[in-house]
């Protein structure tokens, strides 16, 4: 499910997985600003790939690899914060 990653000096990154960006036919540059919008219940969770630390290893986790299982995804403000 999660693949082991080689550790280099670069900080691993990930992000949403989905539709490629559409370029308008007339080629005008777009000002891209992600709109903050809450997801809806009853709708698919947006897929993503994220670097992960799991049981002593650096891995990568893709949400869609967990289809067929129940998933609890928790986000929190930061490591070493108090709550």
């Amino acid at each position, binding site marked *: 499910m*999660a693949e082991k990653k080689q550790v280099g000096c670069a*900080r*691993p*990154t*990930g*992000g*949403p997985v989905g539709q490629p960006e559409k370029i308008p036919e007339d080629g005008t540059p777009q000002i891209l600003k*992600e709109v*903050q*919008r*809450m*997801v*809806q*219940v*009853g*709708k*698919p*969770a*947006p*897929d*993503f790939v*994220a*670097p*992960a*630390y*799991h*049981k002593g290893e*650096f*891995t990568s*986790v893709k*949400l*869609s690899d*967990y*289809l*067929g*299982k*129940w*998933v*609890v*995804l*928790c*986000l*929190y*403000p*930061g*490591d*070493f*914060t108090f*709550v």
Partner: protein
Amino acid sequence: MSVDSVFVHKMWNENELSKMVKGGVPYAMLSDGGGKVGTSLGVYNEDAGVENRGRFIIDPDGIIQGYEVLTPPVGRNVSETLRQIEAFQLVRKSKGTEATPSGWKPGKMTLKPGPDLVGKVWEVWKTDIAVDD
């Protein structure tokens, strides 16, 4: 998942979390540098540059069945999350023929929505079921 790097996750797990939970955190600690995933879910706090305290229950089809979002100073209730998962699993197993009313816990009565139940919920569900003993 937080905006911290996997290296910070490792340090936090080794230096603090493993002192709370024997063997450390058993599940994957994900990194969302820049908050791109948090933004796609709607819980990234752009002003502070951190994720809000969001919790999502995602079913085996990848559908979000529930979420909860809190500001940083207030922690979650794990029992409530587990209760919700058990409720969603029951509904899924029944293929939608059963529903869990307010206050439902494993073992408590469920509702079977249908023509016969319209206007009759008051006969089978009482308000004291809604709150814990």
